[in-house]
Protein backbone atom coordinates (compact mmCIF):
# COMPACT_ATOMS: atom_id res chain seq x y z
CA UNK A 1 0.00 0.00 0.00
CA UNK A 2 1.34 3.42 -0.88
CA UNK A 3 2.26 5.44 2.12
CA UNK A 4 0.12 8.53 2.59
CA UNK A 5 1.80 10.66 5.20
CA UNK A 6 -0.84 13.15 6.30
CA UNK A 7 1.38 15.06 8.64
CA UNK A 8 4.09 15.81 6.11
CA UNK A 9 1.55 15.68 3.27
CA UNK A 10 3.40 13.21 1.12
CA UNK A 11 2.36 10.24 -0.94
CA UNK A 12 5.04 7.69 -1.79
CA UNK A 13 4.51 4.98 -4.38
CA UNK A 14 6.90 2.10 -4.95
CA UNK A 15 7.32 0.82 -8.49
CA UNK A 16 9.47 -2.22 -9.16
CA UNK A 17 11.05 -3.29 -12.44
CA UNK A 18 11.03 -7.08 -12.55
CA UNK A 19 12.22 -9.57 -15.16
CA UNK A 20 14.98 -11.98 -16.16
CA UNK A 21 18.66 -11.18 -15.71
CA UNK A 22 20.32 -8.88 -18.26
CA UNK A 23 16.88 -8.06 -19.68
CA UNK A 24 17.34 -4.28 -19.42
CA UNK A 25 15.73 -3.25 -16.13
CA UNK A 26 18.69 -1.13 -15.08
CA UNK A 27 18.92 0.32 -18.59
CA UNK A 28 15.31 1.51 -18.25
CA UNK A 29 15.94 3.23 -14.97
CA UNK A 30 19.20 4.79 -16.19
CA UNK A 31 17.42 6.21 -19.21
CA UNK A 32 14.73 7.71 -16.98
CA UNK A 33 17.43 9.22 -14.79
CA UNK A 34 19.06 10.82 -17.83
CA UNK A 35 15.84 12.30 -19.16
CA UNK A 36 13.95 13.54 -16.10
CA UNK A 37 14.83 17.10 -15.04
CA UNK A 38 17.34 17.06 -12.14
CA UNK A 39 14.96 19.01 -9.88
CA UNK A 40 12.35 16.26 -10.29
CA UNK A 41 14.54 13.34 -9.36
CA UNK A 42 17.00 12.23 -6.72
CA UNK A 43 20.25 10.34 -6.99
CA UNK A 44 20.37 7.08 -8.89
CA UNK A 45 21.70 4.49 -6.52
CA UNK A 46 23.02 1.19 -7.83
CA UNK A 47 24.13 -1.75 -5.76
CA UNK A 48 25.77 -3.92 -8.35
CA UNK A 49 28.60 -6.39 -8.72
CA UNK A 50 31.87 -5.65 -10.47
CA UNK A 51 30.46 -7.32 -13.54
CA UNK A 52 27.70 -4.72 -13.76
CA UNK A 53 25.00 -7.08 -12.65
CA UNK A 54 22.56 -5.74 -10.12
CA UNK A 55 23.40 -7.36 -6.79
CA UNK A 56 20.72 -5.89 -4.60
CA UNK A 57 18.78 -3.17 -6.41
CA UNK A 58 18.88 0.11 -8.28
CA UNK A 59 16.88 2.93 -6.81
CA UNK A 60 15.68 6.21 -8.30
CA UNK A 61 13.31 8.59 -6.51
CA UNK A 62 11.17 10.73 -8.83
CA UNK A 63 9.16 13.68 -7.58
CA UNK A 64 5.89 14.32 -9.36
CA UNK A 65 5.37 17.65 -7.67
CA UNK A 66 2.50 18.89 -5.53
CA UNK A 67 -0.97 17.57 -6.25
CA UNK A 68 -3.81 19.03 -4.20
CA UNK A 69 -1.40 19.91 -1.44
CA UNK A 70 0.34 16.53 -1.38
CA UNK A 71 3.90 15.94 -2.54
CA UNK A 72 3.76 12.83 -4.71
CA UNK A 73 6.90 10.72 -5.01
CA UNK A 74 7.52 7.65 -7.10
CA UNK A 75 10.31 5.38 -5.94
CA UNK A 76 11.60 3.25 -8.80
CA UNK A 77 13.46 0.03 -7.99
CA UNK A 78 14.96 -2.71 -10.08
CA UNK A 79 15.56 -6.21 -8.80
CA UNK A 80 18.53 -8.42 -9.64
CA UNK A 81 17.34 -10.73 -12.40
CA UNK A 82 19.67 -13.67 -11.87
CA UNK A 83 18.00 -16.72 -10.37
CA UNK A 84 20.80 -16.85 -7.81
CA UNK A 85 19.73 -13.58 -6.18
CA UNK A 86 16.18 -14.51 -5.27
CA UNK A 87 16.57 -13.60 -1.60
CA UNK A 88 17.32 -9.97 -2.36
CA UNK A 89 14.72 -9.91 -5.15
CA UNK A 90 12.07 -10.91 -2.69
CA UNK A 91 13.05 -8.15 -0.28
CA UNK A 92 12.56 -5.44 -2.88
CA UNK A 93 8.99 -6.58 -3.48
CA UNK A 94 8.05 -5.60 0.04
CA UNK A 95 5.45 -2.85 -0.11
CA UNK A 96 5.36 -2.78 -3.92
CA UNK A 97 2.58 -0.66 -5.45
CA UNK A 98 3.19 -1.26 -9.15
CA UNK A 99 5.23 -3.57 -11.38
CA UNK A 100 6.88 -3.18 -14.76
CA UNK A 101 7.81 -6.56 -16.14
CA UNK A 102 10.77 -6.16 -18.50
CA UNK A 103 10.89 -9.18 -20.72
CA UNK A 104 13.76 -10.07 -23.02
CA UNK A 105 12.50 -10.61 -26.58
CA UNK A 106 15.39 -12.80 -27.70
CA UNK A 107 14.44 -16.37 -28.64
CA UNK A 108 17.07 -17.91 -26.37
CA UNK A 109 15.71 -15.95 -23.40
CA UNK A 110 12.08 -16.90 -23.96
CA UNK A 111 11.96 -19.47 -21.15
CA UNK A 112 13.73 -17.10 -18.76
CA UNK A 113 10.80 -14.70 -19.08
CA UNK A 114 8.32 -17.39 -18.12
CA UNK A 115 10.49 -18.48 -15.23
CA UNK A 116 10.84 -14.91 -13.98
CA UNK A 117 7.09 -14.33 -14.12
CA UNK A 118 6.49 -17.50 -12.15
CA UNK A 119 9.13 -16.43 -9.67
CA UNK A 120 7.37 -13.09 -9.28
CA UNK A 121 4.11 -14.85 -8.42
CA UNK A 122 5.87 -17.08 -5.90
CA UNK A 123 7.69 -14.23 -4.21
CA UNK A 124 4.53 -12.16 -3.92
CA UNK A 125 2.62 -15.08 -2.50
CA UNK A 126 5.14 -15.23 0.31
CA UNK A 127 3.95 -11.75 1.28
CA UNK A 128 0.36 -12.98 1.01
CA UNK A 129 -0.18 -11.01 -2.20
CA UNK A 130 -1.58 -12.06 -5.52
CA UNK A 131 -0.06 -10.77 -8.74
CA UNK A 132 -3.53 -9.97 -10.08
CA UNK A 133 -4.11 -7.43 -7.32
CA UNK A 134 -1.06 -5.30 -8.14
CA UNK A 135 -0.99 -2.89 -11.08
CA UNK A 136 1.38 -4.27 -13.69
CA UNK A 137 2.50 -3.51 -17.24
CA UNK A 138 4.85 -5.33 -19.59
CA UNK A 139 7.69 -4.09 -21.74
CA UNK A 140 8.95 -6.38 -24.51
CA UNK A 141 12.51 -5.18 -24.58
CA UNK A 142 15.36 -5.54 -27.09
CA UNK A 143 13.09 -5.32 -30.13
CA UNK A 144 16.06 -4.04 -32.16
CA UNK A 145 17.85 -7.38 -32.02
CA UNK A 146 17.57 -9.81 -34.95
CA UNK A 147 16.80 -13.02 -33.14
CA UNK A 148 13.51 -12.21 -31.44
CA UNK A 149 10.19 -13.83 -30.61
CA UNK A 150 7.11 -12.33 -32.24
CA UNK A 151 4.95 -9.97 -30.20
CA UNK A 152 1.95 -12.25 -30.72
CA UNK A 153 3.77 -15.15 -29.13
CA UNK A 154 5.08 -13.07 -26.25
CA UNK A 155 1.60 -11.69 -25.62
CA UNK A 156 0.10 -15.13 -25.64
CA UNK A 157 2.64 -16.49 -23.18
CA UNK A 158 3.26 -13.57 -20.84
CA UNK A 159 0.15 -11.45 -21.08
CA UNK A 160 -2.86 -13.68 -20.78
CA UNK A 161 -4.59 -10.97 -18.73
CA UNK A 162 -4.34 -8.38 -21.51
CA UNK A 163 -2.34 -5.87 -19.46
CA UNK A 164 -0.84 -2.75 -21.00
CA UNK A 165 2.23 -3.80 -22.96
CA UNK A 166 4.64 -2.16 -25.38
CA UNK A 167 7.73 -2.83 -27.43
CA UNK A 168 10.96 -1.40 -26.13
CA UNK A 169 14.54 -0.68 -27.02
CA UNK A 170 15.55 0.59 -23.61
CA UNK A 171 19.12 1.50 -24.62
CA UNK A 172 17.66 4.02 -27.07
CA UNK A 173 14.84 5.09 -24.76
CA UNK A 174 12.16 3.51 -26.94
CA UNK A 175 9.17 2.28 -24.97
CA UNK A 176 10.67 3.35 -21.64
CA UNK A 177 8.31 6.10 -20.50
CA UNK A 178 5.07 4.56 -21.80
CA UNK A 179 4.98 1.60 -19.39
CA UNK A 180 6.16 3.78 -16.50
CA UNK A 181 3.44 6.31 -17.18
CA UNK A 182 0.82 3.62 -17.57
CA UNK A 183 1.62 1.81 -14.34
CA UNK A 184 2.04 5.05 -12.38
CA UNK A 185 -1.46 6.14 -13.38
CA UNK A 186 -2.86 2.80 -12.38
CA UNK A 187 -1.10 3.02 -9.01
CA UNK A 188 -2.64 6.45 -8.45
CA UNK A 189 -6.10 5.20 -9.38
CA UNK A 190 -5.55 2.32 -6.97
CA UNK A 191 -5.15 4.80 -4.12
CA UNK A 192 -8.83 5.67 -4.35
Amino acid at each position, binding site marked *: *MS*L*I*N*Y*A*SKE*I*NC*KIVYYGPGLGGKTTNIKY*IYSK*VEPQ*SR*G*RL*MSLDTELDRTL*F*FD*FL*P*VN*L*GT*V*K*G*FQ*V*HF*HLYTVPGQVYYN*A*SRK*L*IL*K*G*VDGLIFVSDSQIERFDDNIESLENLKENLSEYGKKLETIPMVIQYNKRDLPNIVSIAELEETLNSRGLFSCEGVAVDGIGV*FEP*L*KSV*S*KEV*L*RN*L*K
Partner: protein
Amino acid sequence: MHPLNINQKEQEYQQLGAENIDSFEREYQKIKKNLEKLCIETKASAVLLIDKAGQLITSSGDTSSLDIPSFATLSAADFAATSNLADLIGEHDFSTLFHQGIAKSIYVSLIADQVILAVIFPKETTLGLVRIKVRKASEEMEILFQNIFAELESEYVGTVDQEFIDEAESELDSLFE
Protein backbone atom coordinates in the same frame (compact mmCIF):
# COMPACT_ATOMS: atom_id res chain seq x y z
CA MET B 1 1.33 27.01 17.16
CA HIS B 2 -1.14 29.90 16.97
CA PRO B 3 -4.78 28.77 17.53
CA LEU B 4 -5.76 30.19 14.18
CA ASN B 5 -3.18 28.03 12.45
CA ILE B 6 -4.46 24.91 14.17
CA ASN B 7 -7.92 25.79 13.00
CA GLN B 8 -6.74 26.30 9.45
CA LYS B 9 -4.94 22.99 9.49
CA GLU B 10 -8.00 21.16 10.77
CA GLN B 11 -10.08 22.72 8.03
CA GLU B 12 -7.56 21.64 5.44
CA TYR B 13 -7.65 18.07 6.68
CA GLN B 14 -11.44 18.04 6.85
CA GLN B 15 -11.51 19.11 3.23
CA LEU B 16 -9.51 16.01 2.50
CA GLY B 17 -12.30 13.95 3.99
CA ALA B 18 -10.26 12.37 6.74
CA GLU B 19 -12.35 12.26 9.87
CA ASN B 20 -9.78 10.97 12.33
CA ILE B 21 -7.01 13.20 11.15
CA ASP B 22 -6.93 15.28 14.34
CA SER B 23 -6.00 12.38 16.52
CA PHE B 24 -3.60 11.14 13.85
CA GLU B 25 -1.92 14.54 13.85
CA ARG B 26 -1.73 14.55 17.65
CA GLU B 27 -0.09 11.12 17.78
CA TYR B 28 2.28 12.17 15.04
CA GLN B 29 3.32 15.28 16.95
CA LYS B 30 3.98 13.14 20.04
CA ILE B 31 6.19 10.89 17.94
CA LYS B 32 8.05 13.92 16.62
CA LYS B 33 8.62 15.10 20.21
CA ASN B 34 9.92 11.67 21.18
CA LEU B 35 12.36 11.77 18.29
CA GLU B 36 13.57 15.25 19.20
CA LYS B 37 14.14 14.14 22.79
CA LEU B 38 16.01 11.05 21.65
CA CYS B 39 18.12 13.16 19.33
CA ILE B 40 19.15 15.51 22.16
CA GLU B 41 19.74 12.78 24.73
CA THR B 42 22.00 10.76 22.44
CA LYS B 43 23.63 13.85 20.87
CA ALA B 44 22.64 12.27 17.56
CA SER B 45 23.13 14.24 14.38
CA ALA B 46 19.84 12.80 13.13
CA VAL B 47 17.15 10.32 14.06
CA LEU B 48 14.93 8.90 11.33
CA LEU B 49 11.75 6.84 11.23
CA ILE B 50 11.42 4.76 8.09
CA ASP B 51 8.78 2.29 6.98
CA LYS B 52 9.74 -1.24 6.00
CA ALA B 53 9.28 -0.45 2.31
CA GLY B 54 12.06 2.15 2.58
CA GLN B 55 10.10 5.38 2.78
CA LEU B 56 10.83 8.09 5.30
CA ILE B 57 8.04 8.73 7.80
CA THR B 58 9.67 11.57 9.68
CA SER B 59 12.99 12.66 11.12
CA SER B 60 14.61 14.88 13.70
CA GLY B 61 18.00 16.59 13.85
CA ASP B 62 20.11 17.90 11.02
CA THR B 63 19.41 15.98 7.82
CA SER B 64 20.46 18.77 5.46
CA SER B 65 23.61 16.95 4.33
CA LEU B 66 21.94 13.55 4.21
CA ASP B 67 20.56 11.98 1.04
CA ILE B 68 17.34 10.94 2.77
CA PRO B 69 15.70 8.78 0.06
CA SER B 70 18.91 6.76 -0.32
CA PHE B 71 19.40 6.49 3.42
CA ALA B 72 15.81 5.35 3.98
CA THR B 73 15.94 2.82 1.18
CA LEU B 74 19.26 1.33 2.29
CA SER B 75 18.18 1.18 5.94
CA ALA B 76 15.05 -0.75 5.01
CA ALA B 77 17.02 -3.05 2.71
CA ASP B 78 19.64 -3.51 5.42
CA PHE B 79 17.00 -4.47 7.94
CA ALA B 80 15.19 -6.77 5.55
CA ALA B 81 18.43 -8.51 4.54
CA THR B 82 19.42 -8.98 8.16
CA SER B 83 16.00 -10.40 9.06
CA ASN B 84 16.51 -13.00 6.38
CA LEU B 85 19.97 -13.75 7.73
CA ALA B 86 18.37 -14.26 11.14
CA ASP B 87 15.89 -16.61 9.58
CA LEU B 88 18.71 -18.69 8.09
CA ILE B 89 20.10 -19.44 11.54
CA GLY B 90 16.69 -20.07 13.06
CA GLU B 91 16.18 -16.65 14.68
CA HIS B 92 12.93 -14.76 14.18
CA ASP B 93 14.60 -11.40 13.77
CA PHE B 94 17.64 -9.41 14.78
CA SER B 95 15.89 -6.62 16.60
CA THR B 96 18.78 -4.16 16.34
CA LEU B 97 21.65 -3.43 13.97
CA PHE B 98 24.77 -1.45 14.70
CA HIS B 99 27.19 -0.04 12.14
CA GLN B 100 30.32 1.41 13.68
CA GLY B 101 32.22 4.16 11.93
CA ILE B 102 35.19 6.33 12.97
CA ALA B 103 33.37 9.62 13.54
CA LYS B 104 29.77 8.48 13.28
CA SER B 105 27.85 5.28 13.81
CA ILE B 106 24.35 4.09 13.05
CA TYR B 107 22.06 2.22 15.40
CA VAL B 108 18.96 0.72 13.82
CA SER B 109 16.02 -0.90 15.60
CA LEU B 110 12.42 -1.85 14.95
CA ILE B 111 9.33 -0.29 16.54
CA ALA B 112 5.92 -1.98 16.68
CA ASP B 113 7.28 -4.58 14.27
CA GLN B 114 6.70 -2.18 11.38
CA VAL B 115 8.74 0.98 11.70
CA ILE B 116 12.52 1.28 11.49
CA LEU B 117 14.24 3.73 13.80
CA ALA B 118 17.73 4.81 12.75
CA VAL B 119 19.96 6.91 15.01
CA ILE B 120 23.08 8.51 13.57
CA PHE B 121 25.33 9.36 16.50
CA PRO B 122 28.87 10.68 17.03
CA LYS B 123 31.83 8.88 18.58
CA GLU B 124 31.38 10.95 21.76
CA THR B 125 28.18 9.02 22.53
CA THR B 126 28.51 5.49 23.80
CA LEU B 127 26.57 2.63 22.25
CA GLY B 128 25.23 1.69 25.68
CA LEU B 129 23.60 5.08 26.12
CA VAL B 130 22.04 4.91 22.66
CA ARG B 131 20.68 1.45 23.44
CA ILE B 132 19.05 2.55 26.69
CA LYS B 133 17.55 5.74 25.27
CA VAL B 134 16.31 4.00 22.13
CA ARG B 135 14.66 1.28 24.17
CA LYS B 136 12.82 3.86 26.29
CA ALA B 137 11.76 5.96 23.31
CA SER B 138 10.70 2.86 21.40
CA GLU B 139 8.37 1.75 24.18
CA GLU B 140 6.65 5.12 24.14
CA MET B 141 6.45 5.32 20.39
CA GLU B 142 5.19 1.77 20.04
CA ILE B 143 1.91 2.71 21.72
CA LEU B 144 1.58 5.82 19.56
CA PHE B 145 2.20 3.85 16.39
CA GLN B 146 -0.31 1.21 17.31
CA ASN B 147 -2.92 3.96 17.66
CA ILE B 148 -1.94 5.36 14.29
CA PHE B 149 -2.10 1.98 12.57
CA ALA B 150 -5.56 1.44 13.99
CA GLU B 151 -6.70 4.73 12.52
CA LEU B 152 -4.94 4.49 9.19
CA GLU B 153 -7.59 2.36 7.57
CA SER B 154 -10.32 4.97 7.93
CA GLU B 155 -8.05 7.88 7.06
CA TYR B 156 -6.95 6.23 3.90
CA VAL B 157 -10.36 6.72 2.38
CA GLY B 158 -11.21 10.04 0.83
CA THR B 159 -7.84 11.72 0.28
CA VAL B 160 -7.52 10.61 -3.30
CA ASP B 161 -10.55 11.59 -5.33
CA GLN B 162 -11.06 11.88 -9.06
CA GLU B 163 -9.86 15.47 -9.10
CA PHE B 164 -6.60 14.38 -7.42
CA ILE B 165 -6.10 11.60 -9.95
CA ASP B 166 -6.78 13.86 -12.93
CA GLU B 167 -4.31 16.41 -11.66
CA ALA B 168 -1.67 13.77 -10.85
CA GLU B 169 -2.08 12.14 -14.26
CA SER B 170 -1.57 15.43 -16.00
CA GLU B 171 1.61 16.00 -13.94
CA LEU B 172 2.76 12.51 -14.94
CA ASP B 173 2.21 13.26 -18.61
CA SER B 174 4.37 16.35 -18.46
CA LEU B 175 7.09 14.76 -16.28
CA PHE B 176 7.51 11.62 -18.39
CA GLU B 177 7.26 13.20 -21.84
